[in-house]
Structures are given as C-alpha cells and as structure tokens.
C-alpha cells in the first residue's frame, strides 16, 4: 500500500519527520518497506499484513496513526453538503440473486460525460505520486476514492448495457473477456454482474472489456457494492488474477463505505463540474451484512497473557482509541465496522499489546516445571555419523529434495526399481519435478560441478537426508570418485574401490556397537558421463530404530590363556561369497575358534581362470585350559575338510 505524507496530512496533523512517522507505523505492525523522496513530499510504501484491510486507504492509515499516538491529531472534516442530483436514474433494472455474497449493491448514473473533460489536477498528482496510471477522468476519480477511503468501485459504459442487470453465480464454463485482455473461464463459485446478454463484470474483481469506459463514453453506470470477504477469498487467485479491487474485497471492506464513496463521488463531480449525476441507489439485504460482535473483556487475562501491569481504565482507553465501542459497566467491547480482525477475545489481547507497544512489554524469565529433556537420539546418531565422516576427510553436502526425470535420479536406493516417484504437480521447472528417492544422483552432480570448477584428484562427499519412495526414510549416502587422498608428496594415493565403502559400513556399525549385518545398506558403483562413481547408502532410520531398541554396552568376559594361530591359503571358485565360507566355518562348531581373519585375496597370474586365492588366519583359544598344537591341528583339519567337501578348494603350497 503506497501513500504520500501529504495525503495523510489531509486527515491528520503530522509534526514528526517522515522517518519518525514510519517508525511509528512499523512498530505498530504496519511495516514500512520503503520511503522515497519526491518533490516536497515522501512516498511511503507499507507492507500490510492481510488482517489489516482497514489500512488499505489514506483515511485508514491516518486513523491508525491516531490510535497509535494521539499527537497525530485528526483534522476536522469540512461539513460537506449532499449535492443535488442533476439527472435522473436511467431505466435500468437490477436484480441481486446472490444477496448472501452481495448484501449491498449501490449504483449511480453519470450522464453527458464529455470527451473533453479531464481528471482534476490534485487527483492526477496524487495518483501519479503513488504510481497509479491515469485512464479516464471518471475511472481516475474512482481509483482516487479507493485509495483515499478504501472503497473499490466500477464504471460501466451505460449505453452498452442491455436489459436487466443481475448479480448471480456464474454458469459452468461461462467465459468473460476482461479489461486486462485475458479470457477467464468461470464456474459456479464465481460471482458475476451480467446484463441480459453477457457478463459485464466479475464481481468485485474486474470488468468486462466490452462494457468498459472509453474516451467516447457518454453515459456511465457506477457500481459501489459490498461483497462478503469469505465469499471473495481465493476467487481471484484461482483465476491467477489479482486486482486492487479483489485485494480489498477479499480482505474486507467496511460495509458502510459504499454510500460514503458514492456521496464522495458526487461531491467531486459537482465541485469539478465534470458531468451530470443521478441520486444514489441501494439494494440492501441487511441480514447478510456483517454484524459487529460483542466480546466480554477479561482484564486479568489480558494482563496475564501479555505479562504487563495495566489498569482496567488503560485497557478501555486503548480499545476506545481503536474505534471500538466499550461499555465499562458490562466490560463488553464491540469492533468498528472496518475492523474485521477484531472478533474474539484474543484479538483484543493483541490490540492492547500492540498499542501498548511490544517494546514496552517487560522481559520476564520463565519458571518452568518440566524435567530436563534427554538429548534427541536421532540427532545424536546423525551427528556421530557426521563426525566420523568429518574425521575421515569427507565433506557434507545438502541438496534440494527435487530432481528430474533422469534415470539416474529415479531408482529406489534399496531395490534399484525404476518407479514413478512422488511427482510435484505444480513444480517450478522440469529440472525439479520429482522428489528424490536416493541421494546418489545429487552427490554425483555435486562432484561433477566441483570437477568443472575446481578439478581435484579425489572427491569424497556425503549427505544425510530423507528420501521419498514407498516409505519415506532418512538415509546416509556417500559417493566417492578418483584417488583416496588429496594429492600430496609422500606416496601416490591408491584409487577408491568398493571395499573402501565396506570399511565405512563396518566403521559406522562399530560407532554404535553393532555389526555391519545389523545395518541396512548397499554398496554399488554407477557410471555417469563416462566416469565411475562408487557409493554406499545406509538406512539411518533403521539404524535409529536398532539403537533405540538396543541395550547398552555390556562387558563380556575373555580368557588370558595363550592362543594358537593357523593359516590356510587356498584356491576357490571366484563366485563363492565370503559369507558362505564363514558360514561353513561356523558350522564346524569349533568352540575354540575365537577369530577368523582374512589376510589375503588374490586373483590373477598363477591362479586359474574364474578362481580366487584366499588366505585366512584362524585363532584358536580355549577358555579353560592351554590349547595344544595337536588340538589346533585337528581343528584346522576339521575346517579344511568341510571347506574341501563344500567348495572343492585346493590348498596352495
């Protein structure tokens, strides 16, 4: 809402500087966004909150300033008389069908508008100062009245109206070509003003192109109505349209304004001798007009919930200064017709706090009778993981949850199924039309981006975030590419391989006293733009669940008797997974086997095709007695026998 200082001075006395005035407005909740200097004046741009429709006019802002501080004294209004009409009503008939939405419909005729007439100079200046374009003298005057007192009105070319005017619901798929040049497809939730042949305006929002006022218009029908705010809400927005008029009606215009506005119009027309005008006509349906509400004021509640020491009288004075009616006997308050935001007791608590001044409210420390809360386990877990990555030279990334249709973006991290993931119906760009179901693609993009910008030899990124698929769950993903370490002098860094990811999974499981088999994870590699990336994903949600269910760390007794180690090196089919070998070893049920240690894996020269060579160390130890070498030999024979039987392994010399 833009207004000039001089415009406000029309209503109130201002002794303060414009900066002081704007500070007062801001501190009362009418935040001043911008002050710009123009010749001998300032334009003040106020960012009004949607509850304060009463301040969408110069008069409203002045009234508000007066409630904030009575030094902004209201100037007495000149006693203006009601002008005598100079023409008759034309014969047009009106029929308000939607009177619940339009409980007050006012109109007036203007005749013999000359194409030579012009906008009065002071109106011209005030509109230009706040950036409203001049259109037609009558339209300009209507715009001026809207900004001045807050009532939107509309002008129709009266000679183009055919037959009876009806205010009704639109029919489904009814179309209107509006003043802005756009065609709007309507439905029954829209309220329209129509004549017997066509829609002449979308009620309270915008007029139809055909019936609009132009330079050659001779006779004008002016509409000044009240539309119920709740019925107007969202109507314009649904049509992707917002006008000064709809903005005001949906927030709430004082239902007493339509008369005031038409009277004001006739005065301006008479003063400036612009054209002939009729008397003012109204079609009212009082039942549907808003009612002021009586609310009983609880002074103690106001004092307690704000936390201030304020007398009953002071409260009453604040409410009276807001334009409310206050009955001291019954302690009841009634809101003025322009204050739609005052309706329940809490609204009055706010009004008192606001005008008392938030800055004047003391700071009172709390007395809380709540047990000190525990640290939030999920955050403790994710922070522990972050710390681990931090200590291992990984960088944490945070990416948008949005991705596009690219295949890479589109797999479920667990199953690699390509599914239709959650699509955003009103996405901003095709690049961001879905919710990601894995973090891999985002982290690869991060590496690619950095490789273009910085060209490192080693990339180590991770992210912890919710991903979206059948179950929305929090996961941890790390993606690596290139060398394991940044370039340095002491030795050449090895390249990353998937076993580096296995180490991470194992380390993370250890951080939480778990085994990697307790985690839900995947380790894979993937190609993107000709480069190979290795990644690892762990379900953080299932880790959190395990941790919450898991008991605390417990000591387990161990023996101090000597151990014996035996090593086996053998050749086995490449396809046999290590876990199956471990399973067979476990099934031999050698109780003295304390530890199995893989110390060698070799594939290549001297090993037959599709075979691998493994070296496994076995550590035997008995809890009760010192183990003999013969016993150790028999254990290893047993294990070897089983392995030979199951996998046809071949011992290496």
């Amino acid at each position, binding site marked *: 809402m833009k207004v000039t200082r001089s415009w406000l001075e029309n209503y109130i006395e201002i002794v303060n500087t414009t900066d002081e005035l704007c500070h007062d407005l801001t501190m009362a909740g009418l935040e001043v966004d911008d002050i710009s200097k123009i010749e001998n004046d300032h334009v003040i741009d106020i960012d009004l909150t949607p509850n304060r429709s009463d301040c969408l006019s110069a008069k409203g802002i002045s009234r508000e300033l007066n409630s904030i501080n009575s030094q902004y004294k209201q100037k007495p209004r000149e006693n203006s008389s009601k002008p005598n009409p100079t023409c008759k009503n034309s014969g047009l008939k009106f029929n308000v069908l939607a009177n619940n939405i339009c409980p007050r419909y006012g109109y007036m005729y203007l005749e013999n508008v000359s194409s030579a007439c012009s906008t009065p100079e002071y109106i011209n200046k005030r509109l230009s100062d706040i950036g409203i374009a001049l259109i037609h003298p009558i339209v300009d005057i209507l715009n001026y009245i809207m900004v001045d007192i807050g009532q939107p009105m509309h002008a129709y070319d009266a000679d183009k109206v055919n037959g009876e005017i009806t205010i009704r619901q639109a029919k489904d798929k009814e179309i209107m070509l509006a003043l802005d040049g756009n065609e709007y497809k309507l439905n029954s939730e829209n309220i329209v003003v129509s004549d017997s042949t066509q829609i002449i305006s979308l009620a309270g929002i915008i007029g139809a192109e055909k019936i609009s006022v132009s330079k050659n218009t001779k006779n004008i029908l002016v509409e000044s109505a009240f539309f119920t705010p709740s019925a107007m809400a969202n109507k314009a927005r649904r049509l992707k349209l917002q006008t000064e008029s709809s903005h005001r009606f949906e927030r709430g215009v004082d239902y007493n304004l339509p008369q005031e506005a038409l009277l004001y119009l006739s005065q301006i027309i008479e003063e400036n001798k612009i054209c002939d005008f009729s008397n003012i006509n109204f079609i009212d349906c009082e039942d549907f007009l808003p009612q002021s509400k009586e609310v009983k004021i609880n002074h103690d509640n106001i004092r307690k919930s704000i936390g201030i020491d304020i007398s009953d009288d002071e409260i009453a004075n604040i409410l009276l200064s807001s334009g409310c009616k206050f009955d001291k006997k019954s302690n009841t308050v009634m809101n003025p017709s322009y204050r739609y935001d005052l309706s329940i007791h809490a609204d009055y608590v706010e009004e008192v706090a606001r005008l008392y001044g938030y800055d004047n409210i003391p700071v009172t420390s709390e007395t809380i009778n709540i047990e000190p809360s525990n640290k939030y386990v999920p955050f403790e877990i994710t922070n522990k993981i972050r710390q681990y990555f931090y200590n291992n*030279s990984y960088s944490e990334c945070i990416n948008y949850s949005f991705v596009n249709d690219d295949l890479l973006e589109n797999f479920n991290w667990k199953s690699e199924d390509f599914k239709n993931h959650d699509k955003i119906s009103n996405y901003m760009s095709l690049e961001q039309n879905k919710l990601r179901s894995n973090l891999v693609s985002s982290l690869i993009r991060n590496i690619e981006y950095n490789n273009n910008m910085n060209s490192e030899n080693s990339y180590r990124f991770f992210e912890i975030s919710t991903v979206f698929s059948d179950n929305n769950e929090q996961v941890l993903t790390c993606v690596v590419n290139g060398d394991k370490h940044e370039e340095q002098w002491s030795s050449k860094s090895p390249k990353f391989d998937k076993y580096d990811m296995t180490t991470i999974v194992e380390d993370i499981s250890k951080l939480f006293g778990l085994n990697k088999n307790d985690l839900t994870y995947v380790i894979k590699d993937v190609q993107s733009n000709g480069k190979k990336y290795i990644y690892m994903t762990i379900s953080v949600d299932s880790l959190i669940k395990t941790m919450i269910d898991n008991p605390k760390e417990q000591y387990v007794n161990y023996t101090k008797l000597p151990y014996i180690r035996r090593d086996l090196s053998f050749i086995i089919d490449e396809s046999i997974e290590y876990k199956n070998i471990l399973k067979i070893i476990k099934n031999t049920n050698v109780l003295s086997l304390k530890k199995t240690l893989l110390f060698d894996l070799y594939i290549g020269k001297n090993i037959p095709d599709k075979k691998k060579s493994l070296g496994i160390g076995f550590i035997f130890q008995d809890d009760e007695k010192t183990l003999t070498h013969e016993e150790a030999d028999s254990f290893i024979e047993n294990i070897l026998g089983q392995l030979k039987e199951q996998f046809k392994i071949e011992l290496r010399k």
Partner: protein
Amino acid sequence: MSGDTLKQDLAKVLDEALKSIKDVNNPSDLEKVRVHFLGKKSTLIGFMKSLSGLDGEEKANAGKNLNTVKQQINQLLSDKKTSLSKSSSNLKDAFDLSMPGKASSIGTIHPITKIMNNAIEIFESLKFECVEGPEIEDEFHNFTALNIPESHPARAMHDTFYLENNFLLRTHTSSVQVRTMDEQNPPIRIIAPGKVYRKDSDITHTPMFHQIEGLYVDKNVSFSNLKSVINIFLKNFFEEDDLRIRFRPSYFPFTEPSAEVDIEYLDSKGNKNWLEILGCGMVHPNVLEMANIDSKIYSGYAFGLGVERLAMLKLGITDLRLFYENDLRFLKQFKRI
C-alpha cells in the same frame, strides 16, 4: 687384440664406471649401472669371451687384469649401495618442520548443519525437547489445524508445492506443533527443526530451506516470557550480550498476538539497520482448541526461525543459493567443528 690395447680399454671402462656410479643417486639406477658394466651384454664380458683368442701367458695376464677391474667395479657398486642407503636414512633424520604433512583426514560439516546444531544446543539448554515430523504433509496439519482455513487469504502467503496425490510439502515446521499437541498433553516444550518448502527462487529465496519451530504450552505462559526466551536465544546464538533486539507486531494466523523480531546489525557501510530474524507469537486459541487443549486453562507461545538467515548473518554469507551449490571452495571455509 693385444694385451696393451686391452689394458687401455679396461682403464677406459673403469673410468666410465667410476663416473657413472658417482652420478647415481638411487638404488634402481645403480642396478642399471651394474647391468651396463657387468651384465651379460657388457663390454667386460665381451672382453672375457675374446680371451680365448690369446696365448698362454698373455691370456693369464689379460684374465688377471680383467678380474681386477671387475672387482674394482664391484667394490665401487657396493660402496655406492651403502652410501645410498645411508643417505635415504639421512632423509628421515633431516626432518623439515615446515614441510606439509601427508594426506589430511579432516573433512567439512555443512554450515547449515552446524548452525542448526548450534541453535538446537541452546534450546536444549533452555529445556526444549527436539521432535521431528514428516516433510510430506496433508492440508490439515499444514494449514487447517493452524487456523488457516481454505478461504483464508493467508494461504496466499505460502506458495505451496502440491504432490499429485493431494499431499503437499510442508511450508513450515509449524505442522510439527500440531502433531505434537495431538499426541502430548501440556506442559509441552518442544523445538522442531527440519526442511520446509516454498515455491520461490531468487537471491533471497530457495525452494527448500530449514526452519526451527519452537512451542511452549503450559499454564500462565505470557508474551513477556516469549520475549525472554527469544532474547536469551539470540544473545547466546550471536554471542553478543549487548545485541539489540526489537519485537514488532505482525500477523500469522496461528498466533495472536503475533510478532516479528528484528536484530540490529551494521551493514557493509557501517550503518545500523534492523533485520528481521524470526516470527513468533502467542498460540492462537483456535489452534489450541483444535488440538483439544483448553485455551481457558492453557496458553502458549510459538516461534519459527529461518536457519539459513541465521547462518547468513553469523557467517557473513550474502547469497542464499551458495548453501545448495556444495562448492568445495564454499564448504571448506567451515572447517571448524
């Protein structure tokens, strides 16, 4: 070949070997030198083979000379080998304190995470308990239960991303308030940190950002308590006891009275300015009632912090979008834990 020419040739070979061995400075080059002078294809072995063409005494003399040279070269090689191994151990002794170390193992934590943890820690010390809620929400929890009915003009303030199944991406963490009040009875004292989404993108808006929502519902909670908790938080967070803070009336459908909080900061030109830092207010009675909390007995306050904004102010970042580019030149600036 005469004995004399051989003598001369041998002297030449020895001379060459001396020079070559002297120049060598690592073991593998030394091995190459050895092969060159003593290997199967070397000049010396060639001479050995040519001995067969000589007569008795001459052959014996020549053989003797050859062996002497061979031994001399061997001696030179072994001396060099010893000196090389010494010099490599000398490298270890000659530690250079100013040299860079080997590969560093320190990574980076995203500044948003750090700022968020920083804020959470302060609130936890003020006895707030952390809770989380879903990022995909329904209209009820995101709007209706927060006193934002379908027709409310305030819904225009949130540019919401809708999913095809009629769910939406939460526009604020206030939805977690609703879920907590549904499940818990007062006293309730929580913070809800997390990601939120709005359809907006420019230098000061990203379609995803982070918020921390706070809620306290109990008997006798006042606006003046709210001022206290916000003051303590901001002064702690910015580590500035004299931080100037002001509360301004504002409007949110789910609080009443509502306030926006500004802090005073110096801009690049050294001018004092007020900067909006958070929104807060007393929980609207309709919100309490919708959660079956008796607003005649209980009152509460709520606040919502924008984590990015806090991070920008604390770290001096001017472009919001930097947070989501994940450029290492950006990330590596925040090495401190």
